[in-house]
């Protein structure tokens, strides 16, 4: 049912792509502080790439990961070290570093063959800590916890600097990632993933090689996260272990779930929702609310953020994408609304 609705109306995809590339010009025309908005959008873009991969892993295959900040860190540090210390060109690092992150995913896939559910969540959380520790231990390359300066990306002889240029770089890859993610989800692999999520036994009985597909899910997810990591490192030009906190991993899973798990568009929407809410709307809203301004501003900010999230979950437990589908079906079937449809 869902599949049929998703596949029709392909015409709006090019419109959306054009809109994505026009957006910076619109923002520039509208506001002098467009660089701030672009920065937040860039951050969201990087997280979208990661979350598409996380959605394939957690949403489609049902393997919970609480350690995706670890994959992000692997990609970021690998690329920073390759480019700045071994002189590998950025374009090449863009291929190698995600593969290395993917290999890490492969390694984490091994425990996933036996461990499931929250136990797996915890294993991946442990992976996040182990990566952080490894980064500190390899001091010669990573400067330990002091952080590492990273050069700006160089593509075809151009150095890409400033939020404006980063936006186009990042969103080109966001579009590619979303398209690739959707292709994977719609392919045989994606169907196998969903079969594993719904019932491992049934999937196995249907001839799906569980270990192969679980490892593959982690590998693909690692590649997406590694890719995001490369872009993250080179566009933010400074990385440290503080960037890749356990809380970030938890945020990622929140983003995917708020969007509505097991839909790529859901992951995109959820990421945009949380990142924009946390870094743009709530700080701006807080400026409007001037009370307790000086000392308690941070608490007010997290209170607003928490409340919006909470109310959202209470009233829209299916996530943003579920909300959208509900709305669409409501209008399609207008006078004959089956009320219990998605409640």
């Amino acid at each position, binding site marked *: 049912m869902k599949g049929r609705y998703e596949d029709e109306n392909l015409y709006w995809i090019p419109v959306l792509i054009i809109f994505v590339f026009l957006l910076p010009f619109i923002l520039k025309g509208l506001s002098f502080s467009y660089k701030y908005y672009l920065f937040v959008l860039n951050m969201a873009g990087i997280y979208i790439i990661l979350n598409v991969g996380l959605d394939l892993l957690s949403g489609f295959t049902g393997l919970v990961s609480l350690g995706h900040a670890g994959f992000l860190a692997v990609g970021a540090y690998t690329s920073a070290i390759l480019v700045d210390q071994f002189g590998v060109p950025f374009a090449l690092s863009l291929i190698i570093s995600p593969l290395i992150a993917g290999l890490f995913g492969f390694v984490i896939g091994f*425990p996933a063959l*036996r*461990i*499931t559910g*929250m*136990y797996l969540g*915890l*294993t991946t*959380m*442990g992976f996040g*800590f*182990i990566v952080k*520790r490894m980064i*500190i*231990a390899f001091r010669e390359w990573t400067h330990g916890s002091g952080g590492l300066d990273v050069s700006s990306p160089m593509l075809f002889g151009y150095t890409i600097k400033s939020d404006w240029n980063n936006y186009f770089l990042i969103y080109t890859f966001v579009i590619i990632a979303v398209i690739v993610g959707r292709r994977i989800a719609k392919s045989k692999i994606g169907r196998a993933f969903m079969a594993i999520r719904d*019932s*491992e*036994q*049934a999937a196995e*009985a249907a001839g799906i090689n569980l270990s192969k597909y679980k490892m593959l899910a982690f590998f693909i997810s690692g590649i997406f996260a590694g890719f995001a990591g490369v872009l993250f490192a080179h566009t933010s030009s400074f990385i440290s272990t503080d960037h890749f906190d*356990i809380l970030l991993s*938890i945020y990622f899973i*929140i983003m995917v*779930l*708020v969007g509505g*798990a097991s839909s790529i568009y859901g992951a995109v929407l959820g990421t945009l929702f949380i990142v924009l809410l946390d870094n743009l709307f709530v700080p701006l809203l807080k400026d409007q609310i001037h009370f*307790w301004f000086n*000392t*308690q501003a941070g*608490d*007010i900010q*997290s*209170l607003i*953020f*928490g*409340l919006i*999230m*909470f109310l959202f*979950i*209470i009233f829209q*437990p299916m996530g943003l994408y579920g909300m959208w589908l509900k709305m669409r079906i409501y209008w399609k079937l207008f006078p004959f609304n089956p009320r219990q449809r998605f409640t």
Partner: protein
Amino acid sequence: MTDLFSGLTQEIISGIALGSIYALIALGFTMIFKATEVVNFAQGELMMVGAYVNFFFVTTFLSAAGTPTAWTFLVALGGSMIFSVLFGYILDFIINRPLKDQPIFSIIMATLSLAIIIRAVVAIIAGPISLMPFSPFGDSTVTFGNIVVSLLDLSIIGSAIGLVIIFYYIFHYTRWGIAMQATSEDPIAAQLMGIPIKRVYALVWIFSAIVATISGILLAPRIALLDTTMGFLGLKAFPAAVLGGFGSIPGAIVGGVILGVIETVSMGTLSFHFQWIKEINDIIPWIVLIAVLMIKPNGLFGVEKVKKV
């Protein structure tokens, strides 16, 4: 050699004390998971609220009574208990009721956002300055030979063991406990058998809030400065709950103690004798945990659920 031995014994004892802290928090996780299959990410925050409320009661009674006596602490403890019962009930009301028929993940997400809300609300009410909690035991210690344990640590170990026994009894030998088990097994069937599952859920949350409050009260003096980041300790206790097998009450204490001992010994003797351990000593608990899960995917005491196709 004796030096090494006594050092190790001391570290193991300290590790057990530290592990009991984890166990206390893990117990709260475990109970909610056992009955509702929800991972309550706000568990650490419940504990933090308990610590703050108890601090509030203690200071109020102290200023009323003047000198601190055992009674002040006991009355404050009673007040905090009453509060935690109410708090648990309210949480059940705002989280479990509206999300009753939703996927478990929505409830987990709700607990995550609840954690953010609780931290913010407590910070707004209590102000930004950290509090200096009182310990009813002061700094007094007990010495056996050349092994030193503080009285506070002993009380933490004692209450961890006590609570585990009490809740084990409740879950396995009382009507309500068996109702809880039935609910966790299959809520719909349980409801059909006449079990009031709404009340069962409320009870579980109340129990969990009580455990959280007790652990908060005991932990607050242990961490010297009380602020809202105390809630993050929940994340440290999460592995303990999982190692013991999520949903197993004795598992919580075993998992907690194992992790506590590993942490102390690897920070201590191991890294003293092997320099390279120093580079990795804080991830040793994680490595052990992953290794254990590889062998026993449901934790040490976890029960493997029979999956039906």
